[in-house]
């Protein structure tokens, strides 16, 4: 196995590991803030949770990007073709 394949596999794992770090922290903060808001204003729970879900989807996208990059490295790597 030459070094390009090794580097690709290592970078794929690296991308997922560090790419999941930021979104995980961000989602934790978002959910904590939403919980706080719902505790203060239970009657607005519908609006808050709807906005929360959309926001979580947006945050999650960054982690998904990393996963897609990792899959590109593993399955569609132009250097290994």
């Amino acid at each position, binding site marked *: 196995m030459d070094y390009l394949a090794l580097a690709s596999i290592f970078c794929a794992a690296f991308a997922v590991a560090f790419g999941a770090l930021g979104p995980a922290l961000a989602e934790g903060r978002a959910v904590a803030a939403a919980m706080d808001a719902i505790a203060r204003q239970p009657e607005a729970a519908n609006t808050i949770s*709807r906005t929360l879900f959309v926001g979580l*989807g947006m945050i*999650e996208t960054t982690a*998904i990007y990393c996963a897609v990059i990792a899959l590109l490295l593993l399955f*569609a790597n132009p250097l290994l073709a």
Partner: protein
Amino acid sequence: MNSPLASNVLFYIGPVPISQAIVTTWAIMALLVLGAFALTRGLSLHPTRRQAAMELIVTTMDTQIRETTGAEPAAYRGFIGTLFVFILFANWASLVPGVEPPTAKLETDAALAILVFLSVIWFGVRGAGVLGYLKSFAAPNPIMIPLNMLESVTRVFSMFVRLFGNVMSGVFVIGIVASLAGLLVPIPLMALDLLTGLVQAYIFAVLAMVFIAATVEDGQTPTQKET
């Protein structure tokens, strides 16, 4: 292990390869069209139980559109509602054994995202005129024109990658776990996948609605906004 980026071709119609995702997509489309046709026969002012259930779904969609954007839902109900229902059915197609959700393949998501891109232009021009649509790029001020033009492409691209990534990763993880641990272990992951599918369908529809409404609002002149 099969690459999640490749699509498996089932057969050819002339030179056109027909993949499994396309067959599933057409099956879902046929199901939705026939279902909608069959369920809206014989509508009456005194709704039957079936009609009441359908009206409940439509009213819920109207409420969601009105609450997220403040726009009147009548013009957008058809497009946004169909988008939501189609993606939901596509994401939950994995419930049928042997069927892979078509949204786990790049081409279906790309088609949906292009649809959203075109519909932003269509609704923007229809709601605010051609000049109004072009003016929406200059909101909030003309310095933002290059950024807004870039954004109109990148936001659609991110919708496409988001839907693909979420559904595909669900299918992929279930595949890996099933190959490792067999019979009952993947079931909780499948349940999580159903939730993800619902949330992603909702997010896709809501974001499409938000983009359309923002374009229409930016394009309108201040006097039109007041009325």
